[in-house]
């Protein structure tokens, strides 16, 4: 049992002979935006694959809504309320925006077809650029617009938890700014978000809580606003240069695990 919305407990996994996660544990409480930070190759995205069920955990457990879902298939986890915004967005290029959204609502339409119309209209309202390009093929849209579509698609199944993997990669600063606002708005509607992001400042702006991962383990966890900036800077290999900007946004440190 677990009292968090989502919890990873001592998960280790990897590919073939290489172990990537060595007993990684972190948790996301209801209504929170949790960020997972770390350098390239630290295993951030791999941990999301375990959360989603795409990658089996060699050992350890995954809890969602308090239930042990380690052995559960991807489809079932989505049905229980886990929405995804995959790495590199992975929108369906040959489908129109609406078809992408309709597919995003696959589990919703199986649960309760009548709600589909209202959820769709609600989202189109909130994402005007998608409303304009409703019948445009997703493949022909810009990186930023595709990111919006991916987020909207993730929300179409009215998830309790939205898992977002490196949304800012390859986006222009302007698009990153828009994405930041969108995530803020989405969070206000009460959706819990688990965010993996390589862009440190972006994460610190968005997340409430931060878990720092290094070589497959969580080495630091703290509420944004009272982070031990030097330790965080060191873990993130950002060095003293950036600690100045970190200080501005993180008042007091929290004891590490």
């Amino acid at each position, binding site marked *: 049992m677990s009292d968090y919305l989502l919890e990873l407990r001592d998960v280790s996994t990897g590919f073939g002979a290489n172990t990537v996660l060595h007993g990684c544990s972190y948790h996301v409480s209801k209504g929170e935006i949790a960020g997972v930070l770390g350098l*390239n190759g630290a295993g951030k995205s791999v941990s999301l694959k375990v959360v989603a069920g795409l990658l089996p955990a060699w050992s350890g457990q995954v809890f969602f809504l308090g239930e042990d879902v380690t052995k559960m298939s991807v489809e079932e986890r989505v049905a229980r309320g886990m929405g995804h915004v995959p790495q590199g967005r992975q929108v369906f290029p040959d489908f129109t925006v609406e078809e992408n959204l309709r597919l995003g609502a696959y589990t919703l339409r199986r649960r309760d077809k009548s709600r589909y119309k209202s959820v769709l209209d609600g989202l189109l309202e909130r994402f005007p650029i998608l409303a304009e390009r409703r019948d445009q093929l997703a493949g022909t849209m810009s990186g930023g617009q595709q990111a919006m579509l991916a987020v909207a698609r993730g929300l179409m199944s009215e998830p309790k938890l939205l898992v977002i993997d490196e949304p800012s990669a390859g986006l222009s*600063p302007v698009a990153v700014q828009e994405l*930041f606002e969108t995530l803020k708005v989405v969070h206000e509607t009460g959706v819990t978000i688990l965010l993996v992001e390589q862009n440190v400042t972006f994460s610190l702006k968005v997340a409430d809580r931060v878990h720092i991962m290094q*070589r497959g383990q969580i080495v630091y966890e703290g509420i944004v606003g009272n982070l031990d900036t030097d330790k965080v800077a060191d873990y993130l*290999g950002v060095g003293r240069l950036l600690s100045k900007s970190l200080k501005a946004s993180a008042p007091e440190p929290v004891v590490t695990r």
Partner: protein
Amino acid sequence: MTDITGWPYESGRGFNFRFTKRKLIALACIAASIAVPPLLFRSTPFLPSHIALNIAVGVSFILMALSLNVLLGYAGQISLGHGAFLGVGAFASGLLTSKPQLPVLVGLLVAAVVGALFALVLGVPALRLRGLYLAVTTIAFAFMMEESLFRWEPLTGGSAGLELPRPLAGTFAFSQHADYLAFLLVFLVGFWLFDQNITRTKIGRAFNAIRWDEKVAQGFGVPVASYKILAFVLSGALAAVAGALYGHLIGFINSESFAFKSQPNYSLLLVIIVVIGGLGSRSGVAVAALFYALLPRFLEFLQGWEMIVGAVALIDVMARHPGGIAGAVRQRAEKRGEKKARGDLSSTDDDELPKLPKLPRPAGLPERPEILTGSALLEVHDISVTFGGLKAVDEAALTVHQGQIVGLIGPNGAGKTTLFNAISGFVKPEGGSAKFLGRELMDLPPHARARLGIGRTFQQIGLTKDLSVNENFLLAQHVAADYPVPKGLLYTASAGGSERAMRKRATDAIEALGFEAFTDTPVRNLSHGQQRLVELGCVLVTAPELLLLDEPSAGMSPAAVENLGERLREIRDDLGRTVLLIEHHIPLVLDVCDYIYVLNFGKVLAHGTTEEIARQPEVIGAYFGEAVA
């Protein structure tokens, strides 16, 4: 870089035994002892003729399977129409020996040449095709041969076919099956020696590298296109000879003998034999060939069941061991070996990079112009690369001076690796130029650039992961293997000498890295840090002038990154090499680099010495999305 051909490769290691001189002579005696008895006990009860016939069929299957193994097992080029080459060889030899009564050996020779020619015709399109598309082309080729050329009456007699006489040695005709079995066994020894010469020279290693990843092969200076054609030509010639030998054994072939629909379908059966035997493992393939050839003949009561059992076995083996039986055997062997290797490993922190090998410049290297220290080694002017409308690299320019470590930093997707690929030749830029030692790189193919002295590492470890550490070091010296291919195939003295020199150099490099324990462990089983180290060693083994390193610190612990800095300085100062380095780890960059270029959205945002860049934190800030605040 994912495995482009999507093909599960097991190294040629398998359970082949390595030949030393003493073993060679022993082998010759074994061959003679195998060949002579069938002659002496011709059709006496000891070796009744139909037993001899069946064994001879088994041996021909081995020859056919070995020919496909060169193409599919070693070079990874998927040929599902190999039966066509068998047919070409059989008909070529048949035409010469039945009507104009030429000696069979002449027929076999011509068959080899004709087989090689047809393989060339199929090899050219193979240059541009990968995986399933190549497989489909080979099937199309086989059908084209079967439905048109093999049925062309003037050439093959159509459905009436051709008679293939038995060879003549002076007055002695190999008419008895036992005699022909002896004749075949001599060719088996010949094929085995030839195949062994492929695997132990640069040819086999180049094939393995091409099978694993063409970019890695090009990075080590392997001219991929010509080696692919070589694989097709060798395989086609061997298959033609094997087909002809089989034709002379059964004495008669017609338009349907090698057809796709015929029973057995040689093209698919040979693929099954090579795959079940474990790709690339010569002994595994030979055992599987014998099994498939002899089972239906000796177990007559099976009648029809043997194909059903065979098909189910194939499906089962593929489902459980994508790498084939020998692959499974190897995996078990390696698992035991790996546990032992990993055992010793966990004691030391594998990210401590010990000293890098200081090796003299190998003799066989092509001549390089004299370089003055500090002179501009690499000058890149406004290189632009666009992918589907998106400008990945936008008029980037940079210069690297001899003896410098130049850093190239920028966020994900800024175009750093694309620029590297443009310099290495894997990507065709729209415009701009890149001069190395005054030579324009843009009009050179990737492997030629490597030969000039540009070493390259890759983000996903540019090694042939299913080959052992030792073999990767040998492959890395491809540039220094100065003997021509034919000499390699005959393993002549000069080729042998060059190979021995390379072997010695590889062992020295491995010892310098302290990796003797893993000489024969496939790279796949090493830890990430160790693989990174082996890659660095391989690139350095031919002492290239310029090293392009793509994010060497990825996945390393802070302590290891510190150590990496040490090693990079060592490469520059002790080994006198020049480095162009893509890196995310800013402290490492600031600590090690002499000059830095900051790239974003394909443009060079800023460049300058480390101090200048360090003084402009907002440059790095922008790089980190500071503008967001």
